[in-house]
Every structure is written in structure tokens, then in C-alpha cells.
């Protein structure tokens, strides 16, 4: 059935080369854990991507209940976690995934660093990777405020104080991020929410696309 459906579409649109180009390529022996078990270190990039997908999906579902408003944020998080079926699991996926994605990304970075895989001709991909790292950290930082509990509030106050200590432009930068020169409140929460769910993911998608295009173009780095 599926094969017939595929053939029907393929006959008209010739879609095979499209996915072949993306999915059908040889995995060199030195990155295949079936040949050398130590090659599992090559999995961390893929695992980072896998967890990123989980973060995107669970985040999308969480916004069905979450409200970025100082009166309702905590209440809505409490409600979705304790009253909605599987709420604890879906929020748990997003909560633990947020930490895990940083861990995986760090391991991926270590592998690339210690294998010297960032060297010519792959310097650009390293740079894009570093940018992705910063985006991920920013995602973690902005997401931390959203449950609007005491930990979130005071962690964000610390963040804003750090931002404020930037020479010359510190106070302006702080106001830009917090939405108010002195208050950490309603405007801070909506800003962090917008940054967390729209701006940073958009940047992340663009950078990941560049990251993957480059690895396909250049191929994986050779054996040590």
C-alpha cells in the first residue's frame, strides 16, 4: 500500500533524488560503532539533534497550556503539571531535555575539539557550532524564567545584574532584556517568552541548517 502510494507520487514528482540526497550516503568505517566501538563518540552530534527535536515538540505542546503572564504563569504550569494527563511527563521531557541537550552538545564539542575535526576546511562549521552553543545557552536561560517561581525569579535577577555589569552599555542592555529599568516583572516575562519561543528557535533553525549543509558538503572528518 505505502509502496504504491510512494510510487504514485514518485512517478509524478520524482522525489527519490530529494531524499536520497539527504539520507542515502555511506557511513565511513571509522565512524561506525559496529566496526570500532570507540566510534560511539560520533553519536553525540546526532543525539544533540534528537534531543533538540524532543525539546521543540514538548515545548510546542506545553504552550497549549502555558500563559506568559505574571498572574497566570505559575498557576498554568502547576495546572498542566498536576491536572492534565501526562503533564508531568511532558514538562519533565522539556525540563530534563534542556539539561541533557547541553550535556550532549558539550560532549559533541569535546569530540570535535580533541579529534581536531575543526581544522581546515571545517573552521566555518566550528564557528557555526559555537554560535549554536550560545543559542542553546540562551534558550536555557530564557526558559528558566518562564515557570515564574522563586528560583526562576531570583536566577533572572542574577542574570540581569550580570548583564548590567557590562561596561558602558550595561544599564541600557539590562533594560532591553528586562523591559523595565528596575522591575523584573510582567514585561520581563513576556520578553523572555517571546525570545524563548520565537527569536531563538528561528536563529537555531537557521544555524542548524547551515551546520548540516556544511557537514554534507564537506563530509565527516577522516580517521585519526
Amino acid at each position, binding site marked *: 500500500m505505502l509502496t504504491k502510494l510512494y510510487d504514485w507520487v514518485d512517478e509524478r514528482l520524482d522525489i527519490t533524488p530529494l531524499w536520497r540526497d539527504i539520507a542515502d550516503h555511506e557511513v565511513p568505517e571509522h565512524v561506525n560503532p559496529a566496526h570500532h566501538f570507540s566510534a560511539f563518540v560520533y553519536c553525540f552530534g546526532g543525539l544533540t539533534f534528537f534531543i533538540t527535536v524532543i525539546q521543540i515538540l514538548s515545548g510546542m505542546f506545553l504552550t497549549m497550556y502555558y500563559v506568559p503572564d505574571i498572574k497566570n504563569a505559575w498557576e498554568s504550569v502547576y495546572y498542566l503539571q498536576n491536572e492534565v494527563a*501526562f503533564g508531568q511527563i511532558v514538562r519533565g*521531557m522539556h525540563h530534563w531535555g534542556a539539561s541533557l541537550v547541553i550535556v550532549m552538545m558539550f560532549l559533541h564539542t569535546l569530540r570535535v575539539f580533541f579529534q581536531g575535526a575543526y581544522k581546515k576546511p571545517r573552521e566555518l562549521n566550528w564557528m557555526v557550532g559555537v554560535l549554536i552553543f550560545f543559542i542553546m545557552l540562551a534558550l536555557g536561560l530564557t526558559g528558566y524564567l518562564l515557570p515564574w517561581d522563586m528560583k526562576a525569579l531570583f536566577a533572572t535577577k542574577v542574570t540581569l545584574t550580570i548583564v548590567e555589569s557590562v561596561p558602558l552599555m550595561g544599564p541600557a542592555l539590562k533594560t532591553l532584556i528586562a523591559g523595565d529599568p528596575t522591575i523584573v516583572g510582567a514585561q520581563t516575562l513576556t520578553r523572555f517568552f517571546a525570545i524563548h519561543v520565537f527569536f531563538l528557535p528561528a536563529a537555531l533553525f537557521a544555524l542548524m541548517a547551515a551546520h548540516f549543509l556544511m557537514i554534507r558538503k564537506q563530509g565527516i572528518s577522516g580517521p585519526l
Partner: protein
Amino acid sequence: MSKHNVSRRQFLNYTLTGVGGFMAAGMLMPMVRFAIDPVLSADKGGDYIATKQKVSELTAEPTRVDFSFKQVDGWYESEETNTAWVYKMDDGKIIALSPICKHLGCTVAWNTDKANPNQFFCPCHYGRYTKDGVNVKGTPPISPLDVYETKEKDGILYLGRLKPHGEA
């Protein structure tokens, strides 16, 4: 041994699709169940709400009865006020009609249209209903007004769930 041989490629295809499908399902099942929870949660409603209306004071003329109740909407709790048009029939039966027009949901009122006295009138598109809540043919509404379940306790009127006309 069966003659049907599974090639190495086929075997790997099956196992990988199976394991991958299992993992994807494990990931998606909680999220989908989470999303469709409102559809599956049981309907809790049905409690009778006390109004401030004394049953003995009801007449054959429809009276506007406002009643308040606590509404729980997810994480948001509020005090809501609904309205019913209530009157007593000759045999003592109490009728409590919903003021929500069955055309597009505006609010109807009793006897507000000078040209058609003693009817419920909706100002949005001139929908009309007779006193028993039945829609007047030739006006926009296509069905009669909904009816509240009613109950009398200690001389006070209690209103229950809204039912379609003829079922309360």
C-alpha cells in the same frame, strides 16, 4: 525451515523500523494524550445553583433571574453570572429559559419589541420566540430556546443544567 528467506537488508529494515517506531510512539504518546486531555476529561457539571429568586414570587410573567456561580476554567477561577427568564405555568410548573438566542448566540429579552408584545426578542437579527421559548417561524432562529433544569428548595429557586427545549 520455511522457504521464505528474509534478506539481511529486509531484516535490518524491519527491526530498525520497529525500534524506531516504538521510540517515536513512546515520545509522542504522552504529548498527544497531554494535548487531547480536555476532550477526554469527564464532564463534571450538573450541580444545581441557588438563585436569589423566591419561588412564591414567580408569576405567569417571565422574570429575569440572574444567578452567580464559581467557574473553574483550568487554572483560572472566577465568579460568573448567568441569566434565566423564569415564569410559572398555570399548573405550577416552573419554566426557566436560557437567554441565549439559538440563531447566533446574542441575548434575548422578554417583551422588548414594541411591534410584537409578549414574546422573547433578540435585537441582533430580530429573532423572536413565544413565551414557551419556541422560535417564531419566519425569524432567524432555527430552534427553541434552551431550558434550565429547575428545583425548589426552602422556597428558593435552584437552576441546573441547560437542556434542549422539551427535555428538561
